[in-house]
């Protein structure tokens, strides 16, 4: 599939939304986030470090090992694409990094926080302070408007990004008073990204963010994530089984049967708009 002109237009729109937001409004999210980007550019310090990570479900004969001695590092400000077929342990990896499930053995360190030793309550604080989540099926609260869905997480942060600026940069400002059911899947996913981004997290975890979208919308979303990574400097982990997406990543991890089968730094990255599949 070739490059779609509409995608390029769309990306331009996204950028223009960000710049048209006005100096005061637009500068706030950027000013906060450039530190991530600057740090990433000057010294690629590790942000996510996973060591000998193991996870199994069930006991006795029903015991199934989902992750087996996985060790990987993602640097600050990188986009990491985690690939693998269904059942390879991608989602479990994401859940463990997200502090949603308990680790059996090994360690996970995110931005200096060692997750292994955290209590469930501390894991909640960790998610609150450091993480943004994007899900395949958006997981928006159906009876909150687009704006209110973003405010759900803005409410958690002492210094959230200005919601209206974010809505403009996501191309959702005109739709802010609509409910999720009243907008397209792509717009819902933008809203989900906005919700993850508004508290300016250090790590953005995306579970099949384009899995429910058509080709064109998927590319728009990937471009948006690329922009987010660039503008806000957050580290992004994208779980997908779409092999083409790896080309936009700084780092590619591949899981197979719970084991890390590939850990590659991508030296010839493609822009998201140039991806085809």
């Amino acid at each position, binding site marked *: 599939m070739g490059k779609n002109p509409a995608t390029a237009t769309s990306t331009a729109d996204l950028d223009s939304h960000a710049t048209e937001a006005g100096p005061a409004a637009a500068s706030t999210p950027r000013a906060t986030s450039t530190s991530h980007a600057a740090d990433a550019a000057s010294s690629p310090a590790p942000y996510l470090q996973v060591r000998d990570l193991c996870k199994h479900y069930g006991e006795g004969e029903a015991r199934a090992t989902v992750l087996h001695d996985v060790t990987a590092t993602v640097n600050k400000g990188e986009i990491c694409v985690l690939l693998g077929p269904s059942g390879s342990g991608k989602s479990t990896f994401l859940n463990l990094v997200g502090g949603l499930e308990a680790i059996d053995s090994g360690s996970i360190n995110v931005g200096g926080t060692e997750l292994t030793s955290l209590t469930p309550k501390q894991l909640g*604080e960790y998610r*609150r302070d450091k993480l943004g989540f994007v899900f395949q099926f958006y997981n928006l609260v159906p*009876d909150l408007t687009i704006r209110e869905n973003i405010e759900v997480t803005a409410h958690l942060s002492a210094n959230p990004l200005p919601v209206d600026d974010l809505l403009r940069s996501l191309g959702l400002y005109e739709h802010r008073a609509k409910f999720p059911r009243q907008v397209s899947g792509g717009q819902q996913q933008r809203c989900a990204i906005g919700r993850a981004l508004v508290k300016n997290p250090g790590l953005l975890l995306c579970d099949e963010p384009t899995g429910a979208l058509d080709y064109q919308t998927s590319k728009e979303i990937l471009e948006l994530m690329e922009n987010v990574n660039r503008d806000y400097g957050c580290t992004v982990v994208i779980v997908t089984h779409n092999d083409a997406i790896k080309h936009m990543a700084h780092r590619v991890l591949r899981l197979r049967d719970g084991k890390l089968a590939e850990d590659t730094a991508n030296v010839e990255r493609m822009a998201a708009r140039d991806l085809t599949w």
Partner: protein
Amino acid sequence: MASPLRKRFPRELKNNLGKYLGIFLLMSVTIALTSGFLLAAHSIGVIIDDMPEKYSIEDARFTTAFEATDEQLNAAVDAAHDAGAGSADIFRNWSFDADFNHAKGDDGRDRTLRVYQHRTQVDLAAYAEGRVPEAADEVAVDRVFATNNGITVGEEVELFGQRFTVCGIMTTSDNQALFQNNSDFTVNTLTFGVAEVSESGFAALEATGHQPAYTYSVRFVDRDLTVAQRTDAEKDMMRALSDAGATVDDLTDSSANQGIGYAADDVSGDSTMWSVLLYMIIVIMAFVFVVLTSGTIEEESAIIGTLLASGYRRRELVTHYLALPAAVGIAAAVVGNVAGYTLMSEPMRNLYYGSYSLPPYYATWSWGVFAQTTVLPVATLVGITLLGLLRKMGHTPLEFLRHETSKGGVKRGFALPERLSFPARFRMRVFLRNLGNFATLFVGIGFASMLLLFSLAILPTMTHYAENLHNNVVAEHMYTLKAPLEIDNAQAEKYAVYSLEYDRGEGSGTETITVYGVPEDSRYWNDLAVGDGHVAFGNGLIDKFGFADGQTISLYDKYEDETRKVAYEGDAYTWGTKSDMAVYMSLDDFNRFFGNDAGYFNGYASDQALDLDARYLASDLTPESMDAIGEQFVGMMDDMIGMLVGLSVFIFLVFMYLLTKSVIDRSARAISYMKVFGYRDSEISRLYVRSITLTVAVSLVVCQPLIIGGLTLLFRAMLLAYNGNIEIYVPMMAIAEVIAIGFATYLAVALLHIRRIKRVPLALALKVQE
């Protein structure tokens, strides 16, 4: 082949045990109470229905000022015949209202026993214990009075200071309800009772110098006379008695005799109340089912869409979702009925046997009661749930697949002002999304509050009523005389009194209106605007019947068969408390009004006790005698109130739990998202539980004025057919208690919800749901 969906039932039951258990418990407890009550009420009804023939209950009674002669009585019998009522028998049924004291250890309280000579032809007694009095010093005492005053067989008691031995405990068929005066509002089982003595015992009482009430009971030979035929004949009989020179003080047909008819009326009225209570709970319960099932359908929208798209018929799915509510309803009806018949019938029976003097109890099966407590509740529950389901399931498979079954998102999906804080808007969204739940909750809270407020206000209302009656007695002694009797006492004031009937209309019978003729500038009736033809109305009359200024009111004189008219002249001519049902005029106007001789009177108002000739004395009313009414109600209602308060709290608990739990359940996925995003449990609880808390608190407060208004109307409707005027008196404390109890119940529920929110798993957010 049975639907494979049925395999979901046990899992659904297990997963939502609290929901089904709550509904089951509330329904079964209500059905148990109702069926227990209705079975007891039906059985008592059968017993009472059998009484007129089994115990030869009189058709009417009249009282003359002095002993009626044979000629006078024969004239009355002839008059009955001439009126077309056929033969009538007149039985001497004299009685003494004797001062009663325990021979040993009496507490000094004033008690009165109405003592009859043992009757063998009319108004027969049923003995529960002991035997009929034979010796001159033996007495048989009414069962309820005996119970309330700790009287046992073999004990010695005093009547008019004469010593008697209690030989039996019994009930009399003409005093099933112990009314000292037929116009009293309620029974008095504490300080008033009836008793029987032997012929020689009666003579012993006569020998004390007291005059009996010269009452005669009438029984027509023709047992098929209608009440109208009977009362017509009775009026003719009274006229004949008067014509023959007798002074008739009172005439009471058995249909108007509260001692005979009140218990049956009360049981019947209470049966209606219990049935209404049951159906209100069932209907609200059905709406709870509709709300909860709607929530389930919304939750399972995609599954339903898939099943419909796969070829399932709508009917099959409706049946599936109806099955559990129906099963719970049937199980509750069965368990409730079994518990009602085995456990509740006895306590319910005791509610009446503690207040009414009825013959020994035996239970009677009733298919009507069975249908009322089993078939109808289940049919109502299933019917309303089915209607709700049909409405909810009327969407296309595509709408189900797209989760477009709830109009809430569109209808209530308006933008909220952004100037409001995010938590405020979020809470409003929670409220709007669950409007159906909250509306049903409001009705449930209103219903439980009404029951609770009724329970908490009934005693203050009756105490307030008793206080009014106490205040209506203007002097320490209100002596009523059988004939004028001159005395020399400066502070005693003459007055005249007579009873008339006012037709309440709408088939509600007649109200007994006491007409007083009082001295102008009386020392007892202060500031009463009477004289020069002016008539003052008791405030109770105005409050109950709402007479308009200038309205002419017709009052019927049943002894003279005449209608007399008085005009209401407005607020300036009202007097007394809201329970004062009298009409006042000056003594001169009174005598002109009734055609009496100038100077006629038949009573003394006095702050000092007067030494009056007992032969002339009809009654001595004191303010303290009115206090017994308040006490009586406390005694009668205590158990009932406890039961109603318990039921109200239970209803609060179940409704609040079910409907607010449903709010949390519907939001479980959103709660899980919030946990994933890093919300603390306490923050989530604040967002969700505070919305619910606010709604519950507002519902509790807002429904109070509605309830008070509703209760006032209900009270008026319920009590219209009774003599007297009772204004519902709701102390602020009772309202505060209702709100406090309701809110305390909610707090218990809220704690469960906070726990529930803590338990919402993070994994729920991770489950794939399109």
